[in-house]
């Protein structure tokens, strides 16, 4: 029965995306948001501000910085600059994600493109990479719409639960579902078959945590650049040998 429902939902790209949003990626992301809800409640945000920051920012580093600086009573310009500098990765994710969505096949305005680009998080992007190998180019966008709706819904729920139950939730037990996201996304990344991306994944994975204690958030960008450049070299060597 369950398999039949699953097959029926997968037959439509939007509902396939929705189903994906409510499965492993959604569970991992929503438990991370549950942690954010706890953090926001502890910091003294009201529920409206907490939920608005989730929807308006849709980026974990941006949300955590917002709450931290808000409680510290930071000036507006510092808030803008800190969030701007900590989110350079969004540029590369959107640049790559928009290409994967093949939006040139759809007649949509710049505003609509910006709207959907808003939901390209690391989880959303990783799902796009995975599904781009399974679906036709014009089927990816409807899938992403469903996925975004699923992820947003489940994350709203996670944040709300975290916010309301922040003083009674056992952190050790919350940690188990939170662990899903890093493992799941790393596995998705390791599925890359092209040597260009494989070398980038391994180099980025090694360099990211090594650089972090020295350069903080910049470690993500620097490891991205170095990892991709290593990938490019590996690709060139492979092409030359062929």
């Amino acid at each position: 029965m369950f398999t039949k429902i699953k097959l029926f939902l997968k037959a439509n790209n939007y509902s396939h995306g929705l189903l994906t949003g409510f499965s492993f990626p959604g569970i991992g992301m929503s438990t991370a948001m549950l942690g954010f809800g706890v953090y926001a409640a502890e910091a003294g945000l009201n529920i409206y501000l907490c939920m608005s920051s989730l929807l308006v920012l849709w980026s974990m580093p941006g949300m955590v910085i917002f709450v931290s600086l808000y409680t510290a009573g930071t000036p507006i310009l510092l808030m803008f600059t800190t969030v701007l500098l900590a989110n350079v990765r969004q540029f590369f994710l959107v640049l790559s994600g928009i290409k994967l969505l093949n939006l040139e096949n759809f007649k949509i305005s710049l505003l609509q493109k910006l709207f959907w680009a808003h939901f390209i998080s690391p989880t959303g992007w990783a799902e796009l990479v995975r599904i781009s190998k399974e679906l036709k180019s014009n089927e990816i966008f409807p899938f992403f719409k469903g996925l975004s709706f699923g992820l947003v819904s489940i994350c709203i729920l996670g944040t709300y639960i975290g916010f309301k139950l922040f003083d009674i939730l056992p952190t050790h037990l919350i940690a188990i579902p939170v662990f899903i996201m890093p493992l799941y996304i790393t596995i998705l990344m390791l599925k890359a078959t092209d040597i260009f991306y494989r070398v980038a994944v391994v180099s980025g994975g090694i360099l990211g945590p090594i650089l972090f204690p020295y350069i903080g958030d910049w470690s993500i960008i620097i490891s991205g650049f170095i990892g991709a450049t290593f990938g490019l070299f590996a690709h060139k060597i492979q092409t030359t040998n062929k």
Partner: protein
Amino acid sequence: MIEKFTTNTDLMPWILLLAAALGIFLWRFFGVLLSNKIKNDSQFSKWINAVAYAMTTGLMLRIIFFPTGALSSTELFDRLLAFIIGVVVFLCFPKKPIVGLIIGIITFGILIFYDLYF
């Protein structure tokens, strides 16, 4: 005018949220704008994808080594061991990635319960 806004304590959190949103929006905006200029099959397009691959993996490994929130209450050994087991199982059964994921999560759960009760 600006002073009137910034001294209003009711509005201030929302103005700060707007400032934070603008900080993120700018990157997304430039990402969308420049995506039209890059050809799908070009070497540069591949390099951009590789940056996203490397960044995302770097970020995930950072969560394992330097977590914040609920994960930070667990031991590095537990996170790392469960993560490695999950990845190794995936590499052994690459056609069934769910197996690696589930075994990794179960291992992590067992390690946490072991730390709590033994």
